[in-house]
Each structure stands twice: as structure tokens, then as C-alpha cells.
């Protein structure tokens, strides 16, 4: 048998790295993790927010001003035509977007604030307080959202404040549940015991040690929830219990437009409808992107 010495295997070459990071690459991969849809959603949302913010300087007409020129199709004067009262649809759409963002934003922020606080205290204290609050949350969640919202608004009377309050109320359960769960899983960890041994008061344990560690899921839930809230406000307005005419609202405008669709006045609904869809779509894209980026279990290597 002839002896044969195998040559030493050479060290396999490292896979060639992609070219050095350009600013674009750093932005795209570093912030969005290569998620094109997330980037698209963020860009769209940023554009819509910008439009909403500079809205008052962008409008071409007074959104509430009625004129005799009713149901005009889109022209150079009225970019999206006019409605049945002769109001400029473009100006009304932009004003609506602003109002809807404010209402949904306030509602979701309020829900985050109250819901997180309730969840935190429930998870930490437990006992009858936890049972009481969680059964309340169960009750709220057991009704169809729109139904409970409509009843509440009928009780409180219509108005922007009522819609904000209702948005807060129907979204509290989401945050209360999520934060309660986070609190439950963290309150038995050693650093909480260590803080207690360091002589930390219950308040300090709750707000300095537990709370900052339970808040990360809120970002994801918040963006997805904001999409739902914008839709809900529009839906309530569409059903006639939300924002009342003549205050412009995307839902109201779509609802009014449907009455004139048969007459061929398609421009009354299409503008506000598209803006509404884009808003919800972009918020959902952003939410999905955030979920993937912030939850380490879902990130692909």
C-alpha cells in the first residue's frame, strides 16, 4: 500500500464582503433592515403627516365655504372638484386628514397612557384590583368595537371630545393586557429583587425598574393601533355618529360622496377615500416593519 500524504487543506476564503457602506446602504440596512415595504410605508406616512401639518397653508379654498358651483368635476380651479354644497374637495380632504390625525393621535396616546398604567399596576399588585380591572377589560373587549363606540357617543353626545374619549376607552384594553403581561414576566426577575434589597420603594420599583423595561411593545402596538384608530374615526363619521358636518372628515366625505356616486360625481369620494386608505396602509406597513425590527425573535439573521 503506497503511502500518500494529503496536502494540508487550505483555509477556506472568507466570503467576499459587499462593498463599503454608502450612506444609502447604512440608512436602508441599518435603520430599515432591508425592509423595502417598511421604508415605503415610512416615506408615505411622512408625506401624509407633512401634508397634515402644513395643511392650513396648502389649502386652496376655505374648506367650509359653500358656493353656488355645486358638484363641479375636477378643474384647474378645484383640483378635486366641488361637493354638493360647492365646497372645494381638495381643501376639505387636507383639512380632514389633519383633524383625523389629531383625533386618532390623541385617542391612541390617551389609551397608551392610561392602559399602560393600569396594566403595570395590575401586573405588579395582582389580587382583587387585577381581577376587577381585567374583568372590566374583558367586558369592553367582548363587544364589537364600533357598537360600543356608537353607544358611548350617543350617551356623551357627539363632538370631537367624545370621539377622542371613545378612542381612548376602546383602546385601553390592548395596552392594559400587553403591559400587564410584560410586567408579570419581569417582576420576578432578579434585578427587581436586587432593587428591593437596595431599599427601593414600591413606587421606585414600579416606575424606575419595571416600567422602562415593559414599554418596548408599545411602539409596535401603537403604530398598528393608530391605523385602526384612524379607520375607526372615519367609520364612526361615516355612520353619522363621529365628526359632524360641516367639520370635514374623511369618513364623512366618503359617506356624503356615496350619495352622489350614482349621479356620476365620483370625485367627491375618491380623493378622501384614497387618502384614508393610504394613511391606514402606511401605518400598517410601518407597524409590521417595527415589529420585525424590534422583536428579536422575528428578525431574520
Amino acid at each position: 500500500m503506497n503511502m500518500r500524504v494529503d496536502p494540508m487543506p487550505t483555509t477556506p476564503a472568507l466570503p467576499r464582503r459587499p462593498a463599503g457602506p454608502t450612506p444609502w446602504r447604512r440608512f436602508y440596512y441599518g435603520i430599515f433592515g432591508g425592509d423595502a415595504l417598511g421604508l415605503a410605508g415610512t416615506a408615505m406616512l411622512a408625506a401624509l403627516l407633512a401634508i397634515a401639518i402644513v395643511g392650513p397653508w396648502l389649502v386652496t379654498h376655505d374648506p367650509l365655504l359653500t358656493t353656488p358651483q355645486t358638484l363641479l368635476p375636477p378643474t384647474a380651479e378645484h383640483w378635486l372638484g366641488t361637493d354638493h354644497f360647492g365646497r372645494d374637495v381638495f381643501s376639505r380632504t387636507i383639512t380632514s386628514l389633519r383633524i383625523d390625525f389629531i383625533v386618532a393621535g390623541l385617542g391612541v396616546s390617551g389609551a397608551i397612557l392610561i392602559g399602560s398604567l393600569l396594566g403595570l399596576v395590575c401586573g405588579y399588585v395582582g389580587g382583587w384590583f387585577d381581577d376587577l380591572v381585567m374583568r372590566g377589560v374583558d367586558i369592553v373587549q367582548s363587544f364589537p368595537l364600533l357598537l360600543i363606540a356608537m353607544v358611548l357617543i350617543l350617551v356623551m353626545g357627539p363632538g370631537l371630545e367624545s370621539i377622542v374619549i371613545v378612542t381612548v376607552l376602546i383602546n385601553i384594553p390592548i395596552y392594559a393586557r400587553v403591559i400587564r403581561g410584560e410586567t408579570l414576566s419581569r417582576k420576578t426577575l432578579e434585578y427587581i429583587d436586587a432593587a428591593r434589597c437596595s431599599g427601593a420603594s414600591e413606587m421606585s420599583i414600579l416606575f424606575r425598574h419595571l416600567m422602562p423595561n415593559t414599554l418596548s411593545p408599545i411602539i409596535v402596538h401603537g403604530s398598528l393601533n393608530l391605523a385602526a384608530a384612524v379607520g375607526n374615526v372615519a367609520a364612526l363619521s361615516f355612520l353619522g355618529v363621529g365628526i359632524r358636518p360641516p367639520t370635514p372628515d374623511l369618513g364623512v366625505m366618503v359617506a356624503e360622496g356615496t350619495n352622489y356616486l350614482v349621479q356620476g360625481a365620483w370625485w367627491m369620494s375618491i380623493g378622501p377615500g384614497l387618502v384614508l386608505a393610504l394613511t391606514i396602509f402606511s401605518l400598517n406597513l410601518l407597524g409590521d416593519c417595527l415589529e420585525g425590527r424590534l422583536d428579536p425573535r422575528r428578525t431574520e439573521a
Partner: protein
Amino acid sequence: MTASPVLSVRKLTKLFGDRTRPEAVNVGVRGVSFDVEGGEVVGLIGESGCGKTTLGRCVVGLQKPDDGHIVINDTDLASLSPARMRTFRKAVQIVFQRPETCLNPRMSVFTFVKQAMRNFDTVPRGHERARMIELAQLVGLKEEALDRFPHQLSGGERQRVAIMRALACEPSLIVLDEPTSALDVSVQAQVLRTLKDLQREVGTSFLFISHDVAVVRYICSRVMVMYLGVIVEEGPSEIVLGHPVHPYTQALLAAAPRITPKPGPHPSLKGELVLADVGPGECPVRARCPMAHERCRTAPPVTQLPEGHRVACWLAADAATDGPISIQTPSKKVPQ
């Protein structure tokens, strides 16, 4: 001894029942009594689930005992109101086992440790930084580590921070609950050396909980061996770990790996711990003890041997009255 012990535990009981299996023996701590003197390092060894950690958590007041007394510096923990308990926690501190979760992930080391100084007023305001640098040197941390967050530190560094936090309270006793078992062997050795040097320098008493015989042998002057919530043997480490009397201790030591194995037969326990085999009121080791006999159906008395060596075994009780101890000759076995 004239000075009263730093920690005095009397008949401490804390049991956890399994509601799905009510016939099984409850696990936890059952009627444990011991003292820790000032400046002493006492080891507590035993297998997983024997109640070591529960005992440690009760001692620092993180768990309320079902029964019994824990007296620290002449103060009974049970007599303290919640408000006084908060300030009293200064006296006894704990270092936990798992370095991943022992630090608040959203707090820098400095903020985390400063809280202890603030709450107990151990350092005058404005001097925290200087004191912290001192402590960091003591536990072998670099000064830069103070401004880092836990995820920027290695496991060994985090454990050093945990020790630093305990020291910042200036306690009279630190419970170390397996502080090195989650670390790499090389890091383990460094942390152990730090702990030993530290203890010599600061003079704080340690209650060192571990399942590692070698670690306890290295650091402790006195050792307690626990099995199923009961201390079965207790005494100076060189005696307990050198010439163990209780069959369980012998088996535990024989199971620990050593470089030069001892010649001759090794005493070992039978099978694994099965809670259902342990009857109430009997010696907890009986079901697995190679030398069990009929008398073990009643719990053995604690026999006092010379030099503070105490053993809870009938064989030791016999030997103490009959003459020299001969452990290696098993008495007549009773078939079970």
C-alpha cells in the same frame, strides 16, 4: 463567644406543596436552625431543589417564612413593619445566580448601584462617584464599566457589579446564591478569588450557597450540608469535607470529581430523589441511604461531635455513645 451572631436562624420553615400531587412531600426548608458569626464565611451545599435558594431568599427577607425566626443583628425580621423592613434591608444583601437578569437592562451600572447608596445613606451626597470607583477596584472592575449598560458587560463583569451593589449597602451579611455557577470556569476562578480577598478586606460575613464542593472548600470556613430542606451535617469545612460522617455528605463528596480519585469503594446514594418515597417524620435521606435501617423511619437527633461538628444521623448518634465512629462498615440493611 461573647458577641451575638450576625445571623441567627431558628426552626425556619418555608414549604412549597404541589397541589396536583398532595401525597408527595413538600419541598422547601423544614425547621432549619443555624448561626453565622461576624466575619465568618459559611457554605451551604446540597443538590438542586434541596431548599438552598429558598433559605437564602428568606434570610434576606425576599420571602416570608411559614414559621420560625430569622434574627439579624439581634432584630427579628418578622417583628419589622414594612417601612422599617425597607431600611433594615441594608444589613443583609444578596448576590444572585444568573448574571443575565441580575441587573436592570435600562440602567447604567452607576445609576443602579447609586440607588443603594442613596436609599441607605451609606455615602454622603456628591461623594458617590469616588466611593463607586473605590468599590469597583475592590471587586476588580474598571472605572469605565461604571457608565456602561448591562448588555455591554460580560457575565463575569455583571456578577462583579452585583457584588458591588451588595457592598455599596455596607451590610453585615451577604448571601451569595451560587454567584459563580453560571460563569465560565476561568471567570469563575477570578470571581472566587475576588470574593475571598474581598471578604478578608471588608470582614463582612458570607453565607455562600453552592452545589460545587470544590468552590465551597476554597472559600468557606464552615459548611452546612442540606438535603430536602434539612441540614444533615454541619461543621468546620476541613472536618465536614475531609472526614464526613453523614452518609449523604460522603456520597456528595464521592460524587465530586477529583484529580486523584480516592482508592476503595465509594459510598453512593441509590437512585434519584423521588419525593413520593419520603415519608413524613422519617430521616429524609432514608429512601436513598445505603446504610438505612429500621430506626431511620423516625428522624434522627442532631449529634454534637467535637469542634462544633453536628450530624443528623442515627449512626453518628450511636457512635457518639458507643465509642469511635466507624462509618465504612454499614450496619445491617433492612430490605425495603
